[in-house]
């Protein structure tokens, strides 16, 4: 009876509900403004320094302005070209005009570099022709072909036409170890020339390995920290955090001192006669070095989330399991371990995501076989200056990480819900 009345009274008509919702929103508006005001500085900071660069990177991976901008006449002339035979005199005139102007304004190099990504020798073809373009008198077609025979190749023109669009997929095609033939067909590169996929795969499996190693090393330490009295735990925690207060470069270099051919560890092994002096172990400047060093550097990122989760598992659970007749082993695997899973997954996802984007340490200790995709991106940013490709690789990495995170939150999110439900 009682509950029935309450339910009947609790039922609101749709109109009343609408009004109630409006009242609620109004009463919360002030609060919302206040919250917005408080986060505004950080929000603006993040927009400027984080979101904007990411958007610009996303855009740069498909942005293709060079040919259109620095060879405008050629681009326009090629717009109606059918691609069946060498273009007519008018197109060559446009080309000469672009090259001459481009040389005068020092912009032709940018277009040349861009086209060179699609086919090597395009740069010398364009810059070589541009050098003489200013002195040419019409008719141009034969004279231009005489300067560089490449202009008689119909593929040259097909590539210029293709790249005179303002957006391109060619950086992504390159990032997937593929190429576009002049006829517009997309195919895999020959086995020997495939680099990026191999690099990406290596980055992933080495990150997985590093994550597993940090878990293996970090779990017992976290367990100890969580079960010790507060004071002792805090002291030990300083040892865990100590690496955080040391420069990354110092830590990496100290591993070089330890692991290199004439380093501490090899010296000791030789001294004990375990390793022949002529046959010292190569533990650095290869994948081994990267794994060892990164495991050490990323270990705190595993320990901290594990510790914070383990700290919340009351010791009474283990005691209860023991009192119910479980051996310490069973009690750990059936009661403690399942409850520490949120810590394991949080630590693992943190270490993995940090590892997959790592760049300084592999660069310093990775040698040839221990480089990560991050080093490749850095190379294209700083070395080859192919920013478009760097951006495409960056986007692929970003999508990969986001995909893994989505997978994680799917699995762990559901798990958490199950525990709470």
């Amino acid at each position: 009876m009682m509950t029935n009345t309450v339910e009947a009274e609790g039922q609101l008509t749709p109109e009343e509900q609408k009004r109630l919702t409006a009242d609620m929103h109004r009463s919360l508006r002030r609060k919302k403004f206040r919250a917005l005001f408080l986060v505004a500085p950080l929000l603006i900071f993040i927009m400027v320094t984080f979101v904007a660069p990411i958007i610009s990177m996303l855009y740069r991976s498909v942005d293709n302005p060079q040919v259109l901008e620095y060879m405008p006449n050629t681009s326009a002339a090629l717009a109606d070209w059918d691609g069946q035979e060498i273009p007519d005199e008018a197109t060559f005139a446009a080309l000469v005009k672009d090259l001459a102007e481009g040389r005068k304004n020092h912009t032709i190099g940018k277009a040349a570099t861009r086209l060179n990504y699609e086919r090597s020798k395009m740069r010398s073809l364009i810059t070589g022709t541009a050098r003489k373009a200013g002195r040419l008198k019409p008719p141009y077609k034969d004279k231009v072909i005489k300067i560089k025979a490449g202009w008689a190749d119909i593929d040259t023109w097909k590539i210029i036409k293709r790249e005179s669009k303002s957006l391109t997929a060619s950086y992504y095609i390159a990032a997937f170890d593929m190429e576009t033939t002049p006829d517009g067909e997309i195919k895999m590169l020959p086995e020997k020339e495939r680099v990026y996929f191999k690099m990406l795969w290596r980055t992933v499996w080495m990150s997985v390995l590093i994550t597993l190693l940090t878990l293996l090393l970090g779990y017992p330490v976290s367990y100890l920290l969580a079960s010790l009295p507060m004071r002792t735990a805090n002291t030990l925690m300083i040892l865990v955090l100590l690496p955080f207060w040391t420069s990354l470069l110092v830590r990496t270099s100290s591993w070089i001192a330890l692991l290199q051919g004439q380093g501490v560890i090899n010296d000791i092994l030789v001294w004990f006669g375990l390793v022949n002096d002529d046959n010292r172990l190569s533990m650095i400047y290869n994948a081994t070095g990267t794994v060892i060093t990164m495991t050490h550097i990323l270990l705190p990122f595993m320990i901290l989330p594990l510790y914070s989760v383990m700290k919340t598992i009351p010791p009474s659970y283990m005691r209860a399991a023991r009192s119910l007749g479980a051996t310490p082993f069973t009690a750990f695997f059936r009661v403690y371990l399942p409850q520490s899973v949120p810590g394991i997954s949080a630590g693992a996802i943190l270490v993995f995501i940090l590892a997959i984007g790592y760049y300084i340490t592999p660069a310093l200790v990775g040698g040839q076989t221990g480089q990560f995709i991050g080093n490749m991106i850095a190379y294209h940013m700083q070395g080859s200056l192919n920013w478009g490709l760097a951006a495409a690789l960056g986007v692929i990495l970003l999508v990969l990480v986001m995909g893994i995170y989505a997978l994680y939150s799917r699995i762990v999110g559901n798990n958490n819900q199950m525990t709470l439900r």
Partner: protein
Amino acid sequence: MENSASSEAFVRFEGVQKSYDGKLLVVKDLNIDIPRGEFLTMLGPSGSGKTTSLMMLAGFETATKGNIYLNGQTINNVAPHKRGIGMVFQNYALFPHMTVAENLAFPLQVRNMGKSDIEERVKRALDMVELGTFGDRRPAQLSGGQQQRVAVARALVFEPELILMDEPLGALDKNLREQMQYEIKHIHEQLGVTVVYVTHDQSEALTMSNRIAVFNDGVIQQLAPPTELYEKPTNSFVAQFIGENNKLSGTLKSTQGGLCTVRLPTGEEVTALDINTVGLNKESTLSLRPERVFLEPVEGQCDNVFNGKVEEVIYLGDHKRVRMNVCGHNDFIVKVPNSTDNKGLEVGGITPIGWSSNDCRALDPA
């Protein structure tokens, strides 16, 4: 202390000491014999050593000195999971990642019981605590009282002969706590298991126990059934800790045939039972229950009669608590049953009060 034959004791603490730091004894020379089927409560303020004693019995703490026997066997070196003792923890310690049924099945699974056997026992245990339909839920989906019942059922499901309970009702609200007290008491009576129960709540201890061991400062102050503990405290700590108590301090002047005379600092002399005094002309604390004090006593009813000045009257429905100034103590409490004829209790008024010397106990100086 109890004089039951040691061979019959199911649980036996013999000269047990415990120190955590090698300087301070948390438990000093503990000796208890607990017969089979008894409900024994360890009662005391926090830090009195009661929980440590329980943990030593469960096997989570090791005794620094002395022996603990279970069923005649010393268990000092037996691992907790081999002791076969059921335990209910303060916050239940139900495994949050398992359902209620899985929690109950856990002790049976680790004992390698058959699947159908496990199912049947789990069902029976759930029925016993009236949670038959809750097997598929997780602990977090249950109310505090339901979690409590599951914890009790889990401690009982593998049919241990001894159950330990460490302040199991501490997290419940008052009504639920009282209800659960009866339920646990009834389960104990039905199953006949031996229960060792730790609490700091005296009313809980009085409600449930066969015997209560009052702990203070690592020592058992008194070990007795509830009525005896309340009616006949043997020292001033117990008198003060159990129930409400009026405390009057004075000097022992004479003793004669079980009675004694204590002179209060204000000069009055009180006749009381000589229970635990330390000697003539030494300090003694008189203990007197508030409900044993009479207002305006009839001639000859009481052999101790004094004047009291009413300081405060608190109305509690069925009775009134009257705070009076008696013999220089202004915290003297008298419980007056609520009836129509006690109107004269006005603050500031002087009323004669009295009590029988048989209700007043002369104890050790507090």
